[in-house]
């Protein structure tokens, strides 16, 4: 069932166009790298502020407002370009452990963010320095940062385990 789906994705017009040519895939990869570095960098800005390493002169709420619009727009680009690369070689990606690890880590990062936004971030306007940032928020920041480092690493390892250009 899944095998058939993966194979038909790969055989689709989009799949063969990206997988068959020599230039489309690298250009999509460039857009993916630009997007994912923006996602990770902007999230790391918030995480490092929560932990208390950077931007300590600004409240957590201010730093979040500054970073998250970048995160979301770049995340949309990363998902679209990621999906296009996936389709070009769906069967192999579907069986690649690092690809599955990466998706799992992204889901965990999303869950961590939802918990933080939903329950932990109340009062973030008043977290103006490290002392006033509660421990629970700092832990959420540390978890997020570790997950995104893992996501970047898993992404890089996909390239080395697909048997294609790294």
């Amino acid at each position: 069932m899944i095998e058939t789906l993966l194979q038909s994705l790969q055989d689709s017009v989009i799949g063969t166009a990206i997988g068959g040519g020599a230039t489309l895939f690298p250009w999509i990869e460039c857009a993916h790298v630009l997007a994912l570095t923006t996602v990770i960098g902007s999230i790391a800005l918030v995480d490092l502020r929560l932990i208390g390493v950077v931007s300590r002169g600004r409240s957590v709420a201010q730093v979040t407002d500054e970073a998250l619009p970048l995160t979301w727009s770049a995340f949309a680009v990363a998902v679209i370009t990621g999906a296009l690369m996936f389709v070009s070689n769906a069967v192999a990606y579907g069986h690649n452990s690092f690809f599955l690890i990466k998706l799992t880590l992204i889901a965990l990062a999303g869950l961590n963010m939802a918990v933080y936004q939903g329950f932990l971030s109340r009062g973030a306007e008043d977290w103006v320095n490290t002392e006033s940032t509660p421990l629970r928020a700092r832990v959420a920041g540390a978890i997020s940062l570790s997950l995104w480092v893992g996501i970047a690493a898993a992404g890089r390892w996909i390239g080395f385990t697909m048997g294609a250009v790294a």
Partner: protein
Amino acid sequence: MGTLNAFCTWLAQTRLSQGIQTTEWIIPAIQTVHILCVAAVMTSVLLLNLRLLGLRARDQPFDSLAARFVPVIWWSLPILLTTGVILIIAEPGRAPQNPVFLLKMGLLSAAVVLTSICRRPLRKDAAFWDQASGRRWAGRLLAGISLALWIGIVCAGRWIAYVQVA
């Protein structure tokens, strides 16, 4: 080019290069560190240039934004250079004679010079880029060029892997 070719051939046969080439996890690990630093630079560059373009963070004076994010670029560059050099030692055939690698280094030098130019007048006058409309337009022009350069650097970085030198 003859000397460079000979150097790369020699480098590829050194024990250091051989060691990195035969230890599977080193290259993706170094690339992960490299890409995390690219994330730090990209996010800083975006926040700074979007502010100069007047698209975001208009409530913040440019010099305070520059004080927060220009150092991130300067601190990331030595790590990017170090990890970049290790990647060259690991795969000498991939970089120094590769035209895309040379393009990347050219764009990088231009971006570094441009970033210094943007920062310099702020020492004497914190609101330099926000004053007369002529300066605002100059700031926007510099921001546009800077964004184009950094996007070019990232794309060239990815294309190094696809343009193989015979």
